[in-house]
């Protein structure tokens, strides 16, 4: 599949290849005469690496007549292009991946997607984490997508820095210290007293805030779809805790994914970071030399999530049934277990999260922490939250509001007021 991909740009060659494959598999189908499939090419559009290549091969082998072609782009361009393709009614693939930050906005526009209930999706509902399942369900009950992975949260921390500050370092003891977010900030205060110069407890105020808000139900949207950011005490509570962390000097105030943040992993300028499963790979990539200095503990407040995706079948597809079958295969418990083993993306299915594959998984980079168990527990403890179409923009607005305080440009009060004004404008 990799060689196939490298030649993707040469359309002529590709066309010949697809035709040849189609003919060959067509012949095979006739020979076997067991398959009712005609020759179908299914296109699937993902971002980054979903770890599906071997699964495609397996599916094509067991489904003669089906050819699968994957397009992959970066996260942001993928979702921008998807909006354009759906809006203009042309250009979308048969199967489109959608990240959780965008899923609510598309769940509000179910007419662009096949209702997967028509293809037996209701049968797999029970296998899913309830919060994951409900995120891709439209108001009219239509199921626009099936969950792939989740980004359940732990807290990654630097054991060497904890030790210097006189804090315990084992995940069990660390987790016991921070049952709640107030406890977490209290530990930070303690850390700061004996911390090495220039080192802060938390990397970024907005990461802290998003983790806390992510546990609230409801958060920004009420059950009826009303925006309640201004009146929901839980949102204000998350904000206040974040402001407290900034005030007590526990927050490094970095912007996630900025150069300074990336370098901070290498130089150890912050001691903790909210850590979805995929963040493990990110840290290893940014700071390979810090191997063994990290560990992972349970997140305060019970569960959390950052990231994770869905596979949808678009209405533009002329092979919706075949595409839905492929989606069911790719999101099956077996496939998700395979992907976790090979790519590290955590499954969104309860049976996989409870299986030995996940439970027994340890990561040597993170001091051999039982990361599988920590992430699986976090995923199962998280309660579903009602998402709304402008969820992502609210997050951008809150992130900027917190930066304004961190950068000393606004008082917490003024920043909060501007945040509420932004929320109002965005939803208006």
């Amino acid at each position, binding site marked *: 599949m990799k060689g196939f991909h490298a030649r993707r740009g040469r359309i002529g060659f590709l066309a010949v290849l697809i035709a040849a494959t189609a003919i060959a598999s067509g012949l095979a189908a006739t020979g076997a005469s067991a398959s009712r499939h005609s020759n179908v090419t299914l296109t699937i559009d993902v971002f980054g690496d979903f770890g599906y290549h071997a699964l495609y091969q397996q599916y094509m082998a067991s489904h003669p007549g089906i050819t699968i072609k994957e397009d992959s782009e970066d996260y942001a361009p993928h979702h921008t292009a998807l909006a354009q393709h*759906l809006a203009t009614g042309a250009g979308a693939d048969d199967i489109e991946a959608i990240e959780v930050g965008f899923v609510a906005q598309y769940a509000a526009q179910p007419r662009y997607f096949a209702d997967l209930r028509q293809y037996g999706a209701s049968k797999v509902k029970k296998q899913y984490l309830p919060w994951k399942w409900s995120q891709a369900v439209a108001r009219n009950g239509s199921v626009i997508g099936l969950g792939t992975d989740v980004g359940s949260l732990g807290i990654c921390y630097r054991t060497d820095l904890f030790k210097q500050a006189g804090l315990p370092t084992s995940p069990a003891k660390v987790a016991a210290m921070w049952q709640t977010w107030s406890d977490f900030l209290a530990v930070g205060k303690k850390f700061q007293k004996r911390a090495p110069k220039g080192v802060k407890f938390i990397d970024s105020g*907005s990461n802290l805030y998003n983790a806390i808000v992510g546990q609230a139900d409801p958060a920004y949207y009420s059950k009826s779809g009303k925006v309640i950011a201004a009146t929901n005490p839980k949102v204000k509570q998350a904000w206040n805790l974040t402001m407290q962390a900034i005030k007590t000097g526990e927050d490094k105030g970095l912007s*996630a994914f900025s150069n300074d943040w990336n370098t901070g992993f290498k130089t150890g300028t912050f001691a903790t970071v909210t850590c979805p499963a995929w963040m493990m790979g990110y840290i290893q990539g940014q700071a390979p030399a810090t191997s063994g200095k990290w560990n992972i503990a349970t997140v305060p407040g019970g569960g959390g999530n950052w990231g994770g995706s869905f596979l949808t079948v678009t209405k533009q597809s002329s092979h919706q049934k075949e595409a839905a079958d492929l989606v069911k295969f790719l999101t099956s418990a077996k496939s998700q277990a395979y992907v976790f083993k090979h790519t590290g993306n955590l499954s969104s299915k309860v049976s996989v999260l409870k299986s030995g594959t996940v439970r027994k998984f340890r990561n040597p980079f993170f001091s051999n922490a039982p990361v599988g168990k920590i992430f699986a527990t976090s995923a199962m403890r998280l309660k579903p939250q009602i998402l709304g179409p*402008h969820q992502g923009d609210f997050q*951008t607005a809150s*992130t*900027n*509001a917190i930066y304004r305080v961190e950068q000393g*440009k606004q008082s917490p009060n003024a920043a909060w007021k501007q945040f509420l004004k932004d929320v109002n404008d*965005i939803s208006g």
Partner: protein
Amino acid sequence: MSVAQRSTDGSGAAALPRRRGRTLWHRLDPKISPYLYIAPFFIVFGVFGLFPLGYTAYISLTDRNLLDPVSHFIGLQNYTALLHDSYFWNAVENTFGIWFLSTVPQLMLALLIAHVLNTQLRGRTFFRCAVLLPQVTSLVAVALIFTQLFGHDYGFVNYVLGTFGIHHVYWEAGRFSSWVAISVMVTWRWTGYNALIYLAAMQSIPEELYEAAAVDGARRWKQFIHVTIPMLRPTIIFTVIISTIGGLQLFTEPYLFQPRAGGGTGGSARQYQTIVMYLYEKFLGSTQFKFGYAAAIAWCLVLLIALFGLVNYFFISRIRSAEG
């Protein structure tokens, strides 16, 4: 500064069937064929220039949302909302600020560089090519590298400032400092381009003018001020107009200057969000997809550019008459 260099060539003129004989066609030929020869440009301009302009104008009068096929005609509501939108005026202010900080030093530097390259310099072909190098560098690469240089904790600029005992500047967070950082990117990229345009114009200045000036006792600097610059006037007007159009459409540099989590708002307090960035945020950069509103921003931008271009034209013209 992404100056769109619109190709206006009329290549591929319609191939006319060549028919012999004194037909009707033969009589019409001199009347019609000139129009056919210039038709390709107008057809291309119509399809890719005029139609989008008109369609954008139409969209700006509706409440069209990209993901919602139903839209309504709402008259000038988008425009009135825009006039009361403090984020829009903030973007206008940022755009002009960055334009000023980048264009003025850029054109002055370009003049000086062109002047130096116009002398009997050793290896001047090499230098003439070298000043164009920033132009052929990928814009994204430029933005990413400059963003690293202007980093807060580990940026090279702060490191150098630190060796002089100057405290670290939080380039991205401050309003003026972020304008400076972005202006440096723009200046770095476009100075050489403008220098070459000036150089070409300088080479067409008749040598006799300099000789006459020398006879009158003018030294090199005086010659530059009183001969070169007035002779370059049309070229200076051209570069100012082009820089204005490009500068007011500034997008890529400030967009990439922002850390990823910020969501394209041009800083936490929108301190360097340009007009086009705001347009992008409303249209595609967020979950709002306000097509109609973005179209209204686009048309306001067109008006601003036209207006500001005129202002610049008169300003530059007056400088010249003061010189003369």
